[in-house]
């Protein structure tokens, strides 16, 4: 339920700025996530909002950004580079693989004239 409140906050922001083209908005949302994460606000917000802050795209940004900040101490290449996707990687992996399977099936069906 609390997730909804957070959600509306984002939705109002979103609808006021961009109605159709989503891409710039996504980038802006992730920029906001960076600021919230960097100033140590996001983790506190999440303790009370739960999935309300994890499920929106800002949660994806937070996963990457928090890992990047955390592992700065191990150096830029091994620390930041190697750990940036340690949380978000699973989302990209499952998303890309699922999209590949779906895309494959759909394309084959179209080519066979089934769709």
């Amino acid at each position, binding site marked *: 339920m609390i997730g*909804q409140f957070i959600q509306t906050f984002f939705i109002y922001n979103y609808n006021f700025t961009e109605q159709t083209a989503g*891409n710039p908005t996504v980038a802006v949302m992730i920029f906001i996530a960076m600021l919230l994460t960097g100033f140590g606000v996001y983790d506190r917000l999440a303790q009370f909002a739960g999935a309300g802050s994890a499920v929106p795209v800002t949660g994806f940004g937070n996963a990457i950004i928090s890992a990047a900040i955390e592992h700065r101490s191990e150096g830029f290449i091994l620390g930041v580079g190697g750990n940036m996707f340690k949380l978000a990687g699973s989302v990209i992996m*499952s998303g890309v693989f699922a999209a590949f399977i779906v895309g494959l099936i759909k394309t084959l069906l179209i080519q066979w004239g089934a769709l």
Partner: protein
Amino acid sequence: MIFFWAFVVGGIICVIGQIMFDVFKLTPAHTLSALVVAGAVLDGFGLYEPLIDFAGAGATIPITSFGNALVHGAMEEAQKHGLVGVVTGMFEVTSAGISAAIIFGTLAALIFKPKG
């Protein structure tokens, strides 16, 4: 009216996520992965676009739309180039989100220190 439905649909997706956290004791990584796969599969059946038309940002902002966007990019390229398009077009639409996350993540590592 779009605000109302955005609120409801976005909220419902988040509540599903919360249930997966609390009732099924899944980690955030498992929950988010499952939602992304769900988004991809829904788009495969052509169900996600109507949801976006209906709920606007309520359907595009949650992570499920990432799965939807991946399938979309893949399908658009596939229509032009066939099967190879599924692979080459995958990140067509989602590029903004991922690139932004990498760029801002790297910047953040330069600027911020973990607060604890």
